[in-house]
């Protein structure tokens, strides 16, 4: 059975000896999924904290295209690419954390433009700030649950953890978010 570990995704169609016809059908299938889900996966990567969400989503689809023949069936493709986005984003954030430790903080330059740059409602910004401060796994669970609306089982597959762990991650994540938002509210009084 095909696992969702993206290490396996490095196998190429050429290596697995697929015929030209199966490669063509794989591309057609991936193109359909791409058209339907690419924006959603870009946004998933963005919400999980990727600095270049499009790059993450493209890489996930590229891996899917190379490994499509080894999937157990076409219906697993979405779960596969979703899990790959989660894994790639986690790796990317880990890399950035190390890179930032070695790079001094940049100083803000003078800005001469007059266009609007930021627009977020204050209340939502507080939620987003609290969400961004969550540990990666909890953030993933919250985003998959409340943004994508996935079931516990689907989240478990995407994150590669058990359903019980998903429940505890969501519950603890919400608890931390609630505490953080209450604290913000109290500071505001």
């Amino acid at each position: 059975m095909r696992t969702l570990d993206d290490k396996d995704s490095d196998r190429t169609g050429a290596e697995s000896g697929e015929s030209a016809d199966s490669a063509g059908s794989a591309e057609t299938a991936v193109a359909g999924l791409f058209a339907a889900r690419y924006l959603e996966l870009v946004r998933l990567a963005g919400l999980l904290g990727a600095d270049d969400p499009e790059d993450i989503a493209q890489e996930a689809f590229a891996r899917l295209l190379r490994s499509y023949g080894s999937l157990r069936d076409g219906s697993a493709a979405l779960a596969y690419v979703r899990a790959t986005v989660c894994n790639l984003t986690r790796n990317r954030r880990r890399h950035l954390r190390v890179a930032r430790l070695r790079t001094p903080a940049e100083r803000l330059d003078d800005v001469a433009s007059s266009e609007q740059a930021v627009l977020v409602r204050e209340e939502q910004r507080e939620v987003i700030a609290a969400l961004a401060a969550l540990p990666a796994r909890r953030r993933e669970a919250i985003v998959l649950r409340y943004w994508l609306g996935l079931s516990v089982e689907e989240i478990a597959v995407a994150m590669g953890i058990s359903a019980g762990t998903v429940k505890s991650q969501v519950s603890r994540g919400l608890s931390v978010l609630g505490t953080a938002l209450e604290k913000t509210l109290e500071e505001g009084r």
Partner: protein
Amino acid sequence: MTDLEDRVRDALLTWAEEFTTSPDAWERMKTKAGRRAIRRQAPRPVRQRWLTRFTPLAAAAAVVVIGVGTAILAETGGFSAALRQVGLGHSGSLAPRGTSPSGSVLGGFAAGSPCAFPNQSKKIPVAGVPISAKVTLDGVTTWWTRVPEGSWGEEDSSGHVRVRKTDLALCQIHGEGGSGTPERPLGKGQLVQASDPFNSLGAGSSVSGIAAASVTSVEADLANGNVVRGYVAYGHGFPYAAWWLTYPQGIAATVVFRDAAGKAVKEIPEPYPPASSTKFTVKPTKWDPARACQQARVQQVAGGTKVWTYVGFTVPKPVQPNHAAPTLCVVTGIVGAEASYTGRYTMPAGQVVRTAFVLNPTSSLSGMAVHGVTSVTAVLADGRKYTGTIITGKLFTYPVWIVSYPLKDPATLVFRDAAGKEVAVLHEPANP
């Protein structure tokens, strides 16, 4: 579903809207997939035999060169001495600082008066020792001059007039008028002397003064994180550095002076605005009078300065008994400073209404729009377009709009519906 879960879902939905895709995403993805496949199929390059032999030899040669160089430098007294020999060390001559004196621009200054302006009396002869600091920015020309020593009466904060002796004056000319300020020489051990902030420029706060000659730069570190560089000039025979800077009004700043090594030698905090003009505290949480308006906070970056605007509608009771017209409540201010404007506006039937908040160099306008409006665009006379933002919410009676564009240009604000049809137009005159 709990309230917290609803809030998380709403926030995620809004946040997700920020992420968009590029039109060539599919092609780029296929390139990625193809590149990886090609790389995997490509044979591993064979390492050249000569390279494996040459690398250790090159490393050994480098070690020898470093050792010999170190020995030579030790004999000659190190790097500093070596540099001095070619004229680049600490004892080498520095490039002349400042600009050359320009006596002609000082043609309106009179003896016994710190400043005399050309449009006031052209017959007053040149007097005093001109120094080179002259800065023109935003229509303001600032000169420093050294005048014959005299006495100047100055009122202190308690209302007492103190007589001070000085031979130094700062003069500024802007538009039709100007001002002159006598300046004390620096005291013993004093590094910097600053004037009171000069806020009559319309757009910026101007601070100036003199500093020890070791000061080489001045900057205003603004509360929003931006840095505004000032000017430092030196005059022939003038013992100090003359400095001047201007920064956007309405924001707290710290004026920082640095020496040639970049070290901050003095900092002067410049809070804004004065306590007497405070209306509301910028922090929404301490802002009680209009708490009913706090349904949304919009943060913009206008002219490099972060500006926030609260928009919303007053509560139905008791402000709007008998289903009276909804009232827009807007408070705008600068992040880290004070709110400078507040207003409540009644929505005329079938119209858009506007409020204005002007911030150099940007006009930021906001208001209510009729239902169905989904976009607002400021169109300037030369065709430039600035897209604004429409904010809607569960508790909003009408859509609220905000748009920013360059301050001095007249603009036409065009409001459109989802089908792109023009719903309303506002003509905004130039804001001098």
